[in-house]
């Protein structure tokens, strides 16, 4: 099959178009601008709709409308813009509307800088918007995976009727790698949407809503949401592990950081230190399974942030193993050498 050289941002755009995304709205922000530009060209070529909105708030609410009307819809942004989208993300979750939201993270807090970072992990996996809701969060670590996970994101969003986030960083977004852009005629999963707003011809009116005023109604609805989230935790957890069976120390990292950690593991093995790697692919649901006691070892979590995913790892090992941490952020990235030194200190 033909491979093309393409950036992560563009790969996400191509995957979206191939997944049948018919609506994109976004507002420029670095380091995800290539995606907006790609969609402006590609989605219109395929008969879809592109809107450069006046703000991130507007973009996410346009996606709300497009999704309510039954279309596969996407928006993308980077950290400060994702903060603005939180209102709409909470409303999408509340109205049970599918959508794909891409966050190509940069440094923060505040305006931060445009260097790659992973410091929006809490915001992505623990909420960010108001209310008891969850997002499925997928973390690609290569251009190929950015493509594959975006395709998956559209399917999961439709199946579970909820927003799904692609969480990458500036390196994933901007680096170029060969991509196998699957078949030109990928079969789009055709999920029926009887709830969509299409005009009430021949049926009772549909309402896209998250507002429940009568006592007890919202609690009942929220319990339903929680049930859905439990089901997802049981079915949709994804991760990759390498050299863990005999490992005395297991590195845990996602996205770009996992690539550096993987190189560190290879070097450590050469140095006769039994290291392994666990790479969460779904950040929510978090792959608790991967930390099962049989694989018990020491863990070193490394992140391009000052310690966010490490909290989920600690919850997963539940006190049964030691969990160490190495992190940098604001444009700083833990190097292979720093990781190796840290591991040697530990073992």
């Amino acid at each position, binding site marked *: 099959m033909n491979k093309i050289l393409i950036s992560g941002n563009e790969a996400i755009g191509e995957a979206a178009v191939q997944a049948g995304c018919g609506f994109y709205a976004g507002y420029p922000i670095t380091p995800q601008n290539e995606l907006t530009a790609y969609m402006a060209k590609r989605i219109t070529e395929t008969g879809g709709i592109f809107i450069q909105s006046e703000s991130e708030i507007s973009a996410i609410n*346009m996606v709300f409308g497009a999704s309510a009307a039954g279309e596969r819809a996407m928006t993308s942004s980077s950290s400060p813009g994702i903060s603005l989208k939180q209102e709409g993300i909470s409303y999408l979750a509340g109205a049970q509307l599918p959508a794909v939201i891409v966050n190509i993270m940069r440094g923060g807090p505040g305006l931060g800088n445009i260097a790659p970072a992973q410091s929006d992990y809490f915001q992505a996996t623990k909420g960010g918007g108001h209310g008891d809701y969850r997002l499925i969060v997928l973390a690609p670590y290569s251009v190929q995976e950015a493509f594959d996970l975006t395709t998956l994101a559209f399917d999961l969003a439709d199946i579970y009727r909820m927003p799904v986030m692609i969480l990458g960083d500036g390196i994933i977004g901007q680096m170029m790698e060969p991509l196998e852009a699957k078949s030109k005629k990928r079969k789009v999963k055709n999920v029926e949407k009887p709830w969509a707003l299409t005009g009430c011809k021949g049926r009772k009116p549909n309402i896209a809503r998250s507002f429940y005023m009568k006592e007890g109604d919202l609690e009942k609805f929220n319990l339903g949401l929680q049930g859905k989230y439990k089901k997802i935790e049981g079915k949709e957890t994804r991760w990759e592990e390498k050299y863990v069976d005999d490992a005395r120390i297991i590195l845990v990292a996602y996205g770009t950081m996992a690539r550096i950690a993987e190189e560190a593991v290879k070097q450590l093995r050469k140095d006769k230190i039994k290291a392994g790697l666990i790479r969460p692919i779904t950040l929510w649901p978090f792959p608790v399974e991967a930390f099962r006691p049989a694989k018990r070892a020491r863990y070193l979590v490394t992140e391009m942030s000052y310690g966010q995913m490490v909290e989920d790892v600690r919850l997963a090992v539940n006190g049964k193993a030691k969990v160490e941490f190495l992190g940098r952020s604001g444009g700083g990235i833990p190097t292979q050498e720093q990781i190796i030194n840290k591991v040697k200190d530990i073992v």
Partner: protein
Amino acid sequence: MTKIYSHPKSLRGVTTHYCPGCGHGMAHKLIAEVVDELGIREKIIGVAPVGCAVIAYDYWDFDCSEAAHGRALAVATGIKRVRPQNIVFTYQGDGDLAAIGTAETIHAANRGENITVIFMNNAIYGMTGGQMAPTTIAGQKTATTPQGRDVRTSGYPLKISEMLAVLEPVKYIERVGLSSPSNIIKAKKAIKQAFQNQIDGVGFSLVELLSPCPTYWGMSPAEALKWIDEVMTKEFPLGRIK
């Protein structure tokens, strides 16, 4: 016997939660009548606001979406772009459309979205307990302007219809008052025109309805209607703006 009036099909036969003398109920009914008369009930998609009319979709009997406070025109843009064959409208209060949603309003209008906007101007925030709105009249007492709106610190009533009228793609704007039978007949005509424009593909159309909020104006329903005619229309003159 010939039947000259009946309950509009597009309005559910339920009791509303609005206060006595409130304009929302009247506006809902006018929209429902127009939808019936134009025969678009099976094609229409309404976007309800955040404000006293937040559950308008419990009263209208057609497809509706909610929208976050102020975002109705962004939501409507998404719907209309995906379904240009449907008729899409937003129903928004002055807080919704002219305060938190100003950006969405101006930009949807300036993109020339072929959408109909029903803008309920009651010069106050009803749902949250009678605070100042961008359209509150100078000197008007509200929960957050207890001495009356002081234009030196709170600005002047925002004339959103006049502001939008200067935008090239805006095709039709009319301000009407829900204050007397003759004005209500004019209001219905304007609403019908705004929907007809969409059907004809004309473009962005907005009807501003001056609407009573007797509860937070601290008036009887009858006094509130008089206040529209005597005070509100001085600040917001009735008639076609564009």
